[in-house]
């Protein structure tokens, strides 16, 4: 792994950012018991940094490290899988894998397979109705509107409910998307239908994409090899695209869209096309 050179000022800046993150962890640990917390770990650079800071914090304070939770949408990169298994073991992290087995089965574990709503269990059917989807079938694609809800949101909510989780740590950052710019360090999510009440902590909001890479490189935090291959942002395998044949940290982070390679914006794109008279 390349050890980068940073100016002393820059290192100080990053150390201050890490310290700020630890403050957020501090708040969380004051409000909740470790057993009621989970760290959400996708294997991506942001959640891995969050986990690494949390580990440091827990080691410094001599407290138990919370369990981690990851979601398998059924369209994962093998490399992410391997990365998570490797470091969960190396760092002694108890990692739980969540998946919507019911949907996966109905789709025959095949991407793009058509899933009949009527084949799904009651919970999933109710969830589909809840998001206003009223067709009889949908294609099994993780990052579509229905897919995203069932494979991620529902799995998340079900897990929280079953394990009585009260607080989660997310690796979100302000500069990821314009809409994020106002996210607070912690947010109390009230209980609504099928979603238990919980608090979300975001300890690395103030890190920019560049900060994450500089910190990762400087402190030699492990990262998934896909980033070296050119992926800037990692989501479902079929919808994440390499942005260039350059390692992520060498790309023009400041002027190009981080999430440009993700297909989460399918609905947004379709809406624009509709407004322009194409659909």
């Amino acid at each position: 792994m390349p050890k980068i050179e940073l100016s002393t000022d820059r290192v100080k800046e990053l150390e201050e950012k890490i310290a700020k993150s630890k403050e957020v962890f501090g708040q969380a640990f004051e409000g909740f018991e470790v057993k009621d917390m989970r760290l959400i770990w996708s294997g991506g650079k942001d959640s891995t940094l969050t986990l690494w800071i949390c580990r440091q914090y827990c080691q410094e304070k001599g407290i138990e490290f919370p369990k981690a939770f990851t979601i398998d949408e059924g369209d994962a990169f093998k490399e992410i899988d391997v990365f998570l298994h490797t470091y969960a073991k190396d760092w002694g992290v108890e990692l739980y894998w969540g998946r919507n087995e019911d949907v996966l089965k109905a789709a025959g574990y095949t991407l793009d397979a058509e899933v009949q709503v009527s084949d799904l269990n009651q919970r999933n059917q109710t969830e589909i109705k809840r998001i206003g989807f009223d067709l009889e079938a949908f294609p099994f694609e993780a990052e579509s509107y229905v897919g995203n809800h069932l494979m991620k949101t529902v799995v998340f909510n079900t897990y929280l409910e079953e394990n009585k989780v009260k607080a989660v740590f997310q690796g979100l950052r302000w500069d990821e998307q314009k809409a994020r710019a106002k996210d607070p360090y912690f947010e109390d999510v009230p209980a609504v239908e099928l979603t238990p009440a919980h608090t979300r902590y975001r300890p690395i909001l103030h890190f920019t994409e560049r900060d994450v890479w500089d910190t990762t490189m400087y402190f030699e935090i492990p990262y998934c090899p896909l980033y070296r291959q050119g992926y800037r942002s990692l989501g479902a395998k079929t919808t994440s695209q390499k942005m260039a044949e350059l390692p992520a940290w060498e790309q023009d982070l400041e002027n190009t869209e981080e999430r440009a390679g993700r297909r989460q914006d399918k609905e947004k794109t379709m809406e624009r096309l509709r407004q322009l008279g194409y659909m």
Partner: protein
Amino acid sequence: MKHVVLFTIDALRRDALGVYGNSRGLTPFLDSLTSDSLVFTQAHSVAPYTQASFPGILTSSYFFDTPRAPKLSLKRTIISEALKEAAGTQGITTAAFHSNPYLSAYFGYNRGWDSFYDSMQDEVDDISPYITGEAINERVDRWLDTVDTGRSLFLWVHYMDTHEPYVPDCQYIEQVDSSIQISKEEMLTLFKEVVLPRDAGNTETVQLLSKLYQAHISEVNTCAKQLFEILEKHKVLTDSTVIMTTDHGEEFGEHGGLSHDGKMYSELVHVPQLIINPPEGKGGRCNTLVSGLDLPPTILDLFGLEPHENFQGTSLFPLLEYQEKGVYGEAVGKLDHKIKDTDRPAYYYREGKWKVIYRQEEDRWELYDLENDPEEKVDRIDSAQEAQKTKEKLKPRIGREYL
């Protein structure tokens, strides 16, 4: 050439520009560039709508060259990638600024660019479902602030202001026809009730739509002027060659329809193309039949780089060496604002004054003598001797579409 700018304006009719004979004076700035430009009078796009046309403009390939899929095939090379490959350590900084969803990261057009703005992260509304030329210009301005203009630049700017819905600001409507009184909501209703269903039946309504479109032309002219001022401000204009063109035109009832569907008539595929500050031919007109396909090779050539094996077109320069050949176009022959699964391809081939069109769904051939019938009103497929010969030229391309 040190810098190259590709400046494309969506849905720009050739006959909207004074350069091509429009007497309404909608484009004074663009017209003023004539003396510094090489004007192409017979430029053709490879398709009549964006999704099928831009593979020509940016990858020098045709729409059906690869199986139909949302993302641009990795088998195609985008000009941004070709520049990176060819320039190596010479380093050409590339940037793209546009607001057409079909050219967004989602559709794979962001490959290879150093900077890529597709506006998908920004909010738009129904009245103006794109980022305006003015806002695009601002982003170009900011980018030029940050970039090292000592290095070569390739900038692609694409405006959407002439694209439907036609909802221009009143200041522009006034320049076209000051008697028009219409609210933005009414203009949007026209879009939904007339343009979307392609209802060209009422001549007065079509004329009104045409005027609203012309108001946007006037707007685009203003934005273009602003863009050139920005380039000048950053001291890159003098060392730039600017290629200005469109991906297709727009129909106003010429063949019974509106907007830009899968039809191969001239109002859609015979496009404007100006090269401002060209390496040769400044102040002149080129009447050679050229294709959008030729733009990527031309761009490479302008930078003094070798041709790319994936580019099917040829550089336009030197003009005397450009071998005139026929031009082709192909797209899904949809006649509706939506593409249906049952829609089949449509093709055209033009050589000299003859143009043949084939629609697979109806299994129908058409032939036009563009010298004597530029508006393509008289189908000569059954009467002209040329018919068979021209058909034979197009036949090999038919059926290449992958289902």
